[in-house]
């Protein structure tokens, strides 16, 4: 091992592991159940015939048939073929807030005290978890300045969808929802801020950024009208630039009778520093799986914690969790509720982990999280800008909040090496690098977000990785263009990724599509 190397001599395991259905052997079993003893059989019968007819499967499910050891090996091999926050310096997945999520919280969440609960239990038997839900609501009220939270949305986009539903319900109650059919957002807001209201039936107007990367007041004024239903906006945006005129935005929207929804999915740089309330928002949400460490998995388990001001509590999904000074209870008496956006009360393990994370840090700790996240980001910004071919469009010479959307455009112009090529080469050193939400307004984009969890040494290691790949791009671009060389897969043709005829996300879909093409 050469200790002077800042970049590891990494090589990922490559198992060439088949899909589990392909290694299935008919009749192979992980567990062989013993015959039912006759005493038991006398009392309950065969255990199946007493089930109602309509609950008995006519055909057994098509599950893979394997012994325990085969299953264990299969998943261990797959796990060796991944990268992730527990394994590598995972700061390349910008906008996702990849941080360390304490393992003790995982233990708490997987404890039978929680995992054995059933959502249909009587509330008197689940006072503990209701207290956790209620108190997390109180914490988030303090953090946002808003008046009530629900944890029912199972992710950020669902929280945005719920906000769009609330906006519609509000205008409905004023007999204005037909006239007000437009939602305003910005290009650098999360794309779901436009997509979710669109699904709700709204026409969405997106504002392009100005030279500084910010939406202009004049552009907003062009977008608003008597048809405006509301504003759904991310701040700070994906560029890591905080919109300093955000109060002016809410003033203009309120001025035309619209409702303001704040996308604070990623609030990692602003905890204890700025709040939805002071920016005069009516609705807002946090992703517990980003800022609040629940953690950010590959798409879950997630929670979009949705908060509202007093005036909008009556529209929230049911049930709300309340406390009458003696006991915690479900409140279904929400007069203009938008109904449910998801079954039951939300992703309870995520709620518990976020609660525990906040409890362990306290209010000073939360503020420190943001301060360190911002410090880390600005250290990284300085170091990235020293790399040949890298740039950070917009807000030149200024600090950023928690992340930065960078560009490899200069590198591309000089070497022909693209963001995609660099991503593929970075995995050869055990790193991940993500590009951008679509559309690619920033050319050859990449987005880094170091969060508070990473040490200076780790940030330096990532920088060394970028530098190494850039050196290669200038000296031997073919090497980078044909990467990865030391990963699970080598250079692959990515065309099939967006061809529905050629990809499948389940085995069943795979068989269906394969047979069709045969």
């Amino acid at each position, binding site marked *: 091992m050469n200790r002077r190397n800042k970049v590891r001599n990494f090589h990922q395991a490559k198992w060439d592991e088949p899909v589990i259905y392909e290694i299935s052997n008919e009749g192979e079993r992980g567990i062989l159940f013993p015959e039912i003893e006759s005493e038991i059989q006398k009392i309950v019968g065969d255990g199946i015939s007493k089930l109602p007819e309509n609950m008995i499967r006519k055909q057994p499910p098509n599950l893979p048939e394997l012994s325990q050891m085969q299953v264990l090996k299969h998943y261990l091999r797959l796990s060796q073929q991944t990268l992730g926050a527990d394994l590598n310096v995972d700061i390349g997945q910008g906008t996702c807030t990849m941080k360390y999520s304490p393992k003790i919280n995982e233990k708490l969440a997987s404890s039978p005290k929680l995992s054995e609960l059933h959502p249909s239990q009587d509330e008197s038997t689940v006072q503990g978890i209701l207290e956790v839900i209620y108190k997390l609501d109180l914490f988030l009220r303090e953090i946002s300045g808003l008046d009530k939270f629900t944890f029912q949305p199972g992710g950020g986009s669902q929280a945005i969808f719920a906000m769009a539903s609330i906006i519609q319900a509000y205008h409905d109650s004023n007999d204005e929802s037909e006239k007000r059919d437009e939602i305003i957002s910005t290009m650098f807001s999360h794309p779901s801020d436009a997509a979710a209201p669109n699904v709700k039936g709204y026409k969405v107007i997106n504002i*392009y950024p100005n030279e500084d990367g910010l939406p202009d007041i004049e552009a907003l004024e062009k977008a608003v009208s008597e048809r405006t239903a509301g504003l759904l906006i991310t701040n700070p945006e994906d560029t890591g630039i905080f919109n300093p005129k955000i109060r002016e935005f809410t003033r203009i929207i309120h001025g035309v009778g619209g409702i303001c929804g704040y996308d604070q999915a990623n609030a990692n740089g602003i905890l204890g520093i700025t709040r939805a309330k002071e920016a005069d928002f009516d609705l807002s949400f946090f992703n517990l799986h980003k800022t609040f460490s629940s953690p950010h998995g590959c798409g879950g388990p997630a929670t979009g914690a949705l908060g509202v001001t007093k005036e909008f509590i009556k529209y929230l999904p049911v049930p709300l969790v309340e406390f009458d000074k003696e006991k915690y209870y479900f409140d279904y008496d929400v007069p203009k509720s938008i109904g449910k956006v998801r079954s039951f009360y939300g992703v309870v393990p995520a709620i518990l982990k976020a609660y525990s994370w906040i409890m362990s840090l306290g209010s000073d700790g939360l503020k420190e999280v943001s301060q360190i996240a911002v410090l880390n980001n600005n250290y990284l910004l300085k170091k990235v800008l020293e790399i040949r071919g890298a740039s950070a469009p917009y807000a030149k010479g200024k600090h950023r909040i928690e992340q930065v959307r960078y560009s490899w455009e200069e590198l591309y112009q000089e070497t*022909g090496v693209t963001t995609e090529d660099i*991503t593929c080469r970075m995995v050869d050193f055990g790193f991940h690098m*993500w*590009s951008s939400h679509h*559309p690619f307004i920033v050319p050859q984009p990449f987005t880094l977000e170091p969060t508070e969890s990473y040490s200076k040494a780790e940030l330096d290691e990532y920088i060394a990785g970028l530098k190494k790949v850039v050196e290669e791009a200038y000296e031997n671009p073919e090497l980078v263009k044909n990467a990865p060389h030391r990963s699970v897969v080598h250079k692959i*043709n990515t*065309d099939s990724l967006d061809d529905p005829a050629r990809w499948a996300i389940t085995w069943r879909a795979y068989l269906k599509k394969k047979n069709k093409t045969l």
Partner: protein
Amino acid sequence: MKKIGLIVNPIAGMGGKVGLKGTDGIDTLAKAKSLGAEQVSPERSMKALKSFVSLRHEIELITYPSDMGENIARQAGFNPKVIGSIKEGKTTADDTKQASKDFCELNIDLLLFAGGDGTALDICKAIGDQVVVLGIPTGVKMHSAVYACNPMKAGDLVALFVQGKVTELKEAEVMDIDEEAFRSGVVSAKLYGYLKIPFERRHIQGMKTGSLPSEKYFQEAIAQEIIDDMDEDYLYVIGPGTTTRSIMEKLKLDNTLLGVDLIYQKKLIDKDLNEKELLEHLSGKKAKLIITPIGGQGFLLGRGNQQISPKVINEVGVDNIIIVATRQKINSLNGQPFLVDSGDNELDRKLSGYVKVITGYHESVVYKTAF
């Protein structure tokens, strides 16, 4: 094996740095040379060729002699098939036209050319849209949309094409400006037609991004949005372009791609109208005008749609202008605002600032316009 025809216009771009606004015609070339202009086209072409030279064994490269392609192709590492004959050092527009025709007869899969609007127009005149074409941008005037945004990208796109990864084509505008008039300060741009170019799909990685539907999809979405919102009391003036054409196609109406058409209550009133005819139709009636940015530089007015004159716009009213554009078109401008050059400064000023642009079904953006 793909057959690629290569045309390098060796003198393209020469007029640029010496301020001649173009290099069309022999006299201008002589003047450019006397002002010390150097060739830029070969060097830029080389960049493009080098981007896909690693695929040379999968390509049959056909080109014209000497500085119309042969020299550069050999320098880049290709072993091209050379056909035709030229007067070395004295190539003209006719050579470009002849080469285009010759290549077409050999059933090429792609015509790669290095030049500017003049070269694009020559190709368009010679062979129309019978083969797929791609421009390496090396000219002075580049109002057309047939070029990749830089030589390297042109090369990358050729590589994708050769590997069979280009599954979609796109119609791109061929525009040209009368250089003589331009030199004396008058811009008179004309939309001459469309060439088929490979459509570059973005290959996006990462679980948080899906790739975008095609430009055609968005054009149809835009058309649906417009049609849903059509007001029975208004005449609709439909400007030139493929995005506006999609409205006519969705309504199953006959139309002109390069001209201005007029509809009322979803029926065609008249097509390919000039300014005078438009004014006659519009007089005293309520109307809306639907336009889309034309060409590679994002001109909303004054390039390729001069029929829509300041008088026509005043008749319609600025508030009744509906702008449509696909996201791809907007993003290809790299943040540059839309441009207006209507011929009336006051009107240009009125139209500049932020404008609303319909980009899809129930989707629009607010984008900057300048003059």
